């Protein structure tokens, strides 16, 4: 189990780096857009599409990295006031339920991505599938982390540790 947790941490770091690059690309592309239009009077048409593509990557890959750090906003609620065993059972049901539903989205996003490889983005000329790839990645990665948390969390722990 330890090697799986270590793998999850490494994957989280990689995802965080990808999201960080996405943010830098947004700053760069939006900056180029402002400078080219306002100072040189010649707007560059590819900057808008690149910024939005980077934003999609930042959102979904970054969200997957943040999920691994338990950094998303959430409510500490029912599972905290339940007795430890019952709280733990509720967490297991919640995480398995989330994993199942999220993986459903991942599968349909994968189908969408498969149909998009032949299409290209209008100004960048890159495959349109690059917009759905981060959704597939994040959904599968989040589902895997949710399942891992079920098997890797000590049986006595409850929702108190889960405050997002």
């Amino acid at each position, binding site marked *: 189990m330890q090697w799986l947790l270590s793998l999850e941490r490494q994957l989280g770091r990689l995802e*965080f780096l990808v*999201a*960080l690059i*996405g*943010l*830098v690309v*947004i*700053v760069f592309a*939006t*900056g180029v*857009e*402002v400078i080219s239009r*306002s100072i040189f009077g010649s707007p560059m048409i590819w900057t*808008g599409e690149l*910024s*939005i593509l980077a*934003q*999609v990557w*930042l*959102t*979904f890959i*970054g*969200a997957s*990295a*943040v*999920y691994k*750090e338990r*950094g*998303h*906003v*959430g*409510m*500490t*609620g*029912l*599972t*905290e006031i339940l007795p430890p065993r019952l709280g733990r059972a*509720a*967490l297991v049901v*919640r995480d398995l*339920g*989330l994993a199942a*539903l*999220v993986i*459903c*989205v991942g*599968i*349909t*996003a994968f*189908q*969408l991505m498969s149909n998009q490889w032949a299409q290209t983005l209008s100004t960048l000329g890159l495959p349109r599938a690059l*917009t*759905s790839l981060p*959704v597939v990645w994040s959904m599968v990665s*989040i589902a895997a982390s949710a399942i891992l948390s079920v098997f890797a969390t000590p049986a006595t722990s409850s*929702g108190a540790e*889960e*405050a*997002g």
Partner: protein
Amino acid sequence: MSTTLLIGGFAVFLVSGAPVALAFLAAAVMFLLWTGIPLSVAGQAMIGGVSNSTLLAVPLFILAGELMNTGGITQRLFAFSSAVMGHVRGGLGHVNVIASIIFAGISGSSSADAAGLGRVEIEAMRKAGYRKEFAAAITAASSTIGPIIPPSIHLVLYGAIAEVGVDYLFLAGVIPGLVMGICLMAGIYIQVVTGREACPTHPWVGAKRLIGSFWEAILPITAPLVIVGGILSGYFTPTEAGVVAVFYVVLVGLLIGELQLDGMIGALSRTVRSSAVVLLILATAQAFAWGLTIERVPEAIATGLLGVSESQVIALAIILVLLIVIGLFESASANLVIITPILMPVAMTLGIDPVHLGIIIVLALTIGVITPPVGMSLFIVAEITKLPVNRIAVATLPYTLALIVALIITAYAPDMVLWLPRLFGYGG
């Protein structure tokens, strides 16, 4: 049944402690599976939700706020505010509010204010002999000005959802933001004169020191003029203003020699985390909101609200109560995505201007950042002061009331809110 599944599923995941964004998604997926609508709708709604150029302003303004906190700018803002207001009855309490108003002119987030400026403010207030609870309470309360005074991440989100010009929303936020500041300062003053709070003041620093601190802070103080002026003069769009703010803050940080490489990397990392959280909520809430629309929930709520009374005054009062209550239980970003499409038809029927409505919604929901159980600013100042959240929440109550007064003034004085947008050509 499908509506129950959608709303009930969301509630169950939420109270079980699931991340808000995933609770939205899980509920939307259950709804789609039950109704037999293809699941690809959820994926497309999510991607479409964040593939919007207006929303690029969200990570950019978060980054600007984070860079301000690492580049030595917040200290200079606080020093200047202290020179201006430190001698007035209420002392550093007023300084805290003034600094937040200036900070809000560059950053668009309450969390950046509470975490960055808050650290400087609370430390200074503790050294000056203020109660820790008061320092924490007024820091949290004044952080709510961030999302109202332009630039504002929440106004960008509202503009994208309601398809309202972000430039007009930014202009409309100026006066209500100042009203919030005035109400908070009045609250502090009342607390001091009634003896509930002892706020030591320091002597007037003198014109020479005031001019000196102004000179040291002149670049950050003039940043809002550069940002808003640039938008109004057409040099850049509100989204592009985000990157201008980032470049400006970096330039100022380098000029004053306090922005280091590790500080910049830290600011980028925190921005990735905050942006991913906010944008995923926005993305998944789109899928959830799509389900609500299919089930005609907004129309049902609109009919219900208007059934109570067709008077604008009463309906607006109900809306304000509704917004404050839902703001208690959910983050402002998530609420904004859900509540905006629901309230738009009501507002149109009642003749409420969409720009005015945006300011009302954002202000009301922002009050939720200083109330338990999900008040983000409350948690941030609790972490800084190491005080229990409940003690800070109690100390924050008078200022929550002050903000509710500001909300009521904003809601019932549309001409005050729309004065600036109209001055710059808004036709509403």
